[in-house]
């Protein structure tokens, strides 16, 4: 691969690499980030394919059904990770749990990034009074103790909107403040450049300038931030579900699976029920963090690696 590119370069001079191509090369060379990416892709694929895989994984593919005959079975050849107190296969539930945890994490991240980018870029670009009002509002959102308000809001909205989306909306609405601040500071620095002045002087509308000229230049910061937020959103979802204020109890998410460890009996004597979601959750967060670090490194033009 490496030798073929040098050969082709010798034949005719190619265009130099774009910043994104350089970033991609740097990321591909980062072993830790690549291993993490493979792991995350694997977890995602297995979660998406859970309904298809369920029938091959265990004799009890239905995760909603309580099976009285097969409660609390330790891991064996039939149930690779055993069954829980309602007789449901732990491995199957782990895959289904990934669907919910990743979906909530992803949707909440998307919401946080979109809200934060809109508020931050408008505040940073227009400045003055608009900036002041938007940033004071951001300050207010940032001073709310996050977990406290999530729990209170979730209790209010519970039952009025479909369970899963309540959680996504609530955590999204309460956590965009950091992104807004970050995007604003980046936009403030970026808009001083002459190409912005040039774009404005040929009559580009402010929104076109923001969308076409400013945002692509702050995209790398937003991408790195999004990765780290994705990890923290998955933690928030599972922590809330563990406490009983997250997704509805019947939904299999990693947090809900872990909450069975609330019973001393399960915690002490049946570790196969709560350990798999704990391990998968931790590894997922770890991998996403590594990917985030890798991206940060790859997108930083000053880093030499």
């Amino acid at each position, binding site marked *: 691969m490496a030798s073929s590119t040098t050969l082709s370069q010798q034949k005719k001079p190619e265009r130099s690499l774009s910043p994104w191509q350089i970033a991609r090369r740097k990321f591909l060379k980062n072993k830790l980030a690549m291993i993490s990416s493979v792991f995350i892709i694997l977890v995602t694929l297995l979660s998406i394919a859970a309904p298809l895989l369920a029938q091959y994984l265990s004799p009890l593919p239905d995760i909603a059904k309580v099976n009285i005959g097969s409660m609390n079975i330790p891991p064996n050849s039939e149930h690779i990770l055993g069954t829980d107190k309602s007789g449901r296969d732990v491995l199957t539930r782990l895959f289904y749990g990934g669907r919910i945890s990743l979906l909530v994490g992803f949707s909440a991240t998307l919401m946080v990034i979109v809200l934060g980018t809109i508020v931050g870029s408008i505040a940073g670009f227009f400045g003055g009074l608009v900036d002041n009002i938007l940033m004071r509002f951001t*300050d207010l959102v940032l001073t709310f103790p996050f977990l406290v308000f999530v729990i209170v809001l979730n*209790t209010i909205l519970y039952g009025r909107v479909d369970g899963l989306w309540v959680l996504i909306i609530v955590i999204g609405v309460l956590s965009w403040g950091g992104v807004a601040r970050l995007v604003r500071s980046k936009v403030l620095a970026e808009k001083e450049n002459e190409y912005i002045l040039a774009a404005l002087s040929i009559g580009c509308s402010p929104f076109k300038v923001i969308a076409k000229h400013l945002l692509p230049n702050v995209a790398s910061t937003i991408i790195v931030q999004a990765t780290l937020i994705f990890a923290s959103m998955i933690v928030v979802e*599972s922590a809330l579900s563990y406490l009983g204020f997250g997704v509805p109890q019947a939904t299999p998410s990693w947090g809900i699976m872990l909450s069975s460890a609330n019973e001393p009996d399960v*915690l002490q004597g049946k570790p196969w029920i709560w350990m798999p979601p704990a391990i998968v959750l*931790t590894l997922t967060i770890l991998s996403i963090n590594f990917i985030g670090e890798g991206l940060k490194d790859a997108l930083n033009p000053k880093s030499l690696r």
Partner: protein
Amino acid sequence: MLKYTIKRLLGTIPMLILISIVVFSLAKLMPGDSLSGEIDPLNTNPEYIEEMREKLGYNEPLPVQYFNWITGFVQGDFGKSTKYKTDVFDIIMEKVPNTLLLGVISLIITYILAFAMGMYSGRRPYTIGDNAIAGINYIMLAIPSFVAAVVAIYFFSFHLNWFPFGGSVDILIEKGSFEYYISKLHHVLLPALVLGAMGTASYTQFLRNDIIDNSRKDFVRTARAKGTPIRKIYNVHILRNSIIPLVTFLGFDFAALIGGAIITETIFTYPGIGMLFLDSVTSRDYPTLMALTMLLSFLTLAGNLIADLLYGVVDPRIRLD
């Protein structure tokens, strides 16, 4: 500095008012009537209910209700808990010492761990030891606190039997005796360890990088040239300079501890503010819930304020804005 402090303090007042309005509106939006605990549930006579509503001020317009609530709140009258039938103030005050103890011990643990690891890594960067510490930090950053708590209970309480797994004190021990305090400390240690270990990663990495930065500076070269022992350079000259920026983390820890306390206290069934909060949500104890939400928001605000002020102390340029 005084001008900056006053400016920041005045800036928090509108925030406090806005937060109190948000908390009040949220409480009003909560399902159910916050009356339910005050009225005798067996008496369904509509006249009686109407009379009680009138007496408790629930028929007033919302702004008046808000005003009544907030004036009472400022004077320390948080209302009566609908679950415990006593003053919310007393219930909260009963739990505050426990949470305070947990917070202080966990902060001490964070500092000890972070200083030990950060100073080691900073002095020997890019060695096996440094990489091992960085690895541990990555893992600690990734483990969600509730997973860490569950695993800690599993190993230390159930398998090794080192720590009790719930409560804040042994109920059989007489209050006030020496054993009582030892038992309290024994109960708080495991939750504090979990809560404290979670915060070490950022401290450690910050301290490490700062020590490495400082070790390349001129004052270190001068000290070396004068023949100061390396150990003294690191432990006195460099550390003194590296501690200063760390001070600003303290304010943010405040806010982080609040969130952490809710989770850890609940898992360890440690009777503190966090557990009381979750308890008040599940039992629909609105006066307690409102008071605690206000209190926790206030603490977060205070934490941010402390962080800002400490920034001003550490970096004089910020004061000029």
